[in-house]
């Protein structure tokens, strides 16, 4: 079934079955790639942070540029109040980015192409942001649903729409990432399959498509990680600076 474009998203157990009570928490290929991504991040950034030279080498430059990139992203979208959440957003961005990028390696598993993973991340962000909002503003955080300058007649409708849009945040955030990754990888697989099925005569067109798609997918992998992180910043901005 290797020609099935959805086959690449299959999760299977690696090693023995681990049960916690009646719950199956076995180590799977998804877990393996989560571990690989995290380890890669830790190794790269640890090496980059190790040396303290005035003129940085490549790894140091990479880690410092990433640091300033995320720091700038946060300060641009959420202001200086978001500084305590820097390390979380940095970890989130790097985790999603590395999972996406590792997914681009042939035969690799894409962790972020699974709705459950992205949904857990998005739900965690949603709950965290809501808690932060209520902690900072108390019940005044509910003013987020009542935009100022709206005619009183439209207000009930607007409030309902605002509440729905607020509650749909975790779904839109998770589905955006998951759908992008799944669609991209499925497409690459499909075009890769065409290269084989059309053979040496007609296979060149899907092959060139595949090459172009690889470039596009690398861009998408970065872009979706960036979008995921920047939307988190925007939600955090709503919670920290209540000016709707």
């Amino acid at each position, binding site marked *: *079934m290797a*020609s*099935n*474009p*959805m*086959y690449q*998203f*299959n*999760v299977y*157990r690696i090693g023995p079955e681990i049960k*916690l009570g009646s*719950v*199956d*928490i*076995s*180590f*799977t290929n*998804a*877990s393996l790639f*989560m*571990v690989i*991504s*995290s380890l890669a*991040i*830790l190794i790269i*950034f640890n090496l*980059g*942070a*190790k040396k*303290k030279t*005035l003129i*940085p080498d490549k790894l140091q430059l990479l*880690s*410092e540029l990433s*640091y*300033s990139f995320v720091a700038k992203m946060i300060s641009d979208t959420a202001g200086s109040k978001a500084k305590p959440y*820097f*390390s*979380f957003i*940095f*970890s989130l961005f*790097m*985790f999603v980015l590395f999972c996406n990028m590792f997914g681009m390696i042939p035969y690799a598993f894409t*962790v972020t*192409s*699974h*709705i*459950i*993973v992205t949904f*857990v*991340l998005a739900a965690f962000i949603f709950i965290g942001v809501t808690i932060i909002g209520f902690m900072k503003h108390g019940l005044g955080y509910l003013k987020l649903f009542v935009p100022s300058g709206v005619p009183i007649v439209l207000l009930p409708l607007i409030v309902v729409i605002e509440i729905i849009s607020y509650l749909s945040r975790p779904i839109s955030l998770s589905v955006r990432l*998951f759908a992008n990754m*799944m669609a991209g990888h499925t497409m690459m697989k*499909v075009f890769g*399959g*065409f290269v084989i099925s*059309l053979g040496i005569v*007609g296979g060149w*067109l*899907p092959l060139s498509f595949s090459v172009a798609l690889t470039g596009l997918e690398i861009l998408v992998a970065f872009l979706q990680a960036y979008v995921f992180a920047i939307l988190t910043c925007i939600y955090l901005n709503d919670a920290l600076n209540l000016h709707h």
Partner: protein
Amino acid sequence: MLKKIVFLLFVTCFACFNTVFAAESGGMPQLNPEFWISQIFWLIITFGILFIVLTKVILPKISNNLETRKSQILENIETADKQKEESQKKIDEYEKIILDSKLKAKSYFNEAREKILDDINKKRAALEKDLDEEINEVEKELSDLKNKSGEKINRIAAETSAELIKELIGDEVNSSSIAAIVEDQSKINKERKDV
């Protein structure tokens, strides 16, 4: 032609896609809840460890590195500014020294020149004085000699004339009268010479 080929290719692609999907039985593996709990569990573990290690160990180091670099660069710029100022001061000092020494050299030169000129003048004045004196002396001697020579000549002439007269006439003539004649004669000679 090319359009037709591309169109045909897409039709084939679509057909392939359909057959591929028809072959699939379980739908999207993402919606199979068999390993959801496992994925959530491992996500929490890996992301948690990643977050904790990044927060506690790595990010402070990077931020520290960046801060250190920033402060070091600022410090270096400050030092450079200070050194620039100092060097400017040194250059000013140096120029002042050169100007001073130039002036000094000039004054030394002038002093020396004046001294030498003074010396030369003094020496020349002394020499001129000496020379004048000597010339005067010589002139005086000469005029003395001239005056004296006239008298002597007159006397010799008188004596010689007296001797001659004595030899000629054998008698002595009054010497004073001879002297008077000689004097007259020499005066006439002189006048003639002067004229």
